């Protein structure tokens, strides 16, 4: 099951809630303000590291580019909208809002 998270982790607890319920191995895709979570060297660096031990983590490149985020945490995969669609082909979707 693919989980999407679209809220900034600084203002909102959506990412942390999502992680608490996602099964190990479930891919998590960060979109919109959700992508701020994976900017390198921010306060969530260690959380991102922990997530990556159990779950593949993706971030939507167009949203990263829009926000000027070029340095991202290592281990995170970027995808474009078609890559988003590919993930949806492979998994049912759980959109955390």
């Amino acid at each position, binding site marked *: 099951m693919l989980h*999407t998270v*679209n809220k900034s982790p600084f203002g909102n607890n959506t990412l942390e809630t999502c992680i608490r319920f996602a099964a190990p191995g479930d891919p998590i895709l960060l*979109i*919109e*303000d959700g992508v701020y979570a994976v900017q390198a060297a921010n306060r969530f660096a260690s959380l991102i590291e922990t997530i990556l031990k159990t779950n593949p983590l993706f971030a939507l490149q*167009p949203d990263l580019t829009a926000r000027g985020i070029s340095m991202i945490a290592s281990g995170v995969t970027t995808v*474009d*909208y*078609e890559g*988003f*669609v*590919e993930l*949806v*082909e492979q998994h*049912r*979707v759980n*959109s955390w*809002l």
Partner: protein
Amino acid sequence: MNIGILVKEGPYNHQASDTAYMFAVAAIKRGHRVDAVFLYNDGVLNVTKLMDPPQDDRHISSRWAQFSLKHNTRIYACVVASKRRGISDDIVIEGADITGLGTFTEIATRNDRLLTFG
């Protein structure tokens, strides 16, 4: 694949409608069918034809109208949510209908995937 989309936030104020649109375009590109877009909560505001954004900005309701026409995707706004927010048949774009949640139930069940943007 057949895909249903649920949009739960209004245009411009939230990126939800933009992401839904970009996703829908990419899904078509990869050979899928976008069966329907259902609008709930403030999402119903996406289909007012009265919107008139600055010229250098995207026109969200026209964009959905064109997408609907081109890809034969129906756009539905929930009737109860629409009434609360002043969306009525008179001001709705071509390609969109105001309808009940029964329609959404069908969309959620008949498609291979349901994605929510909000």
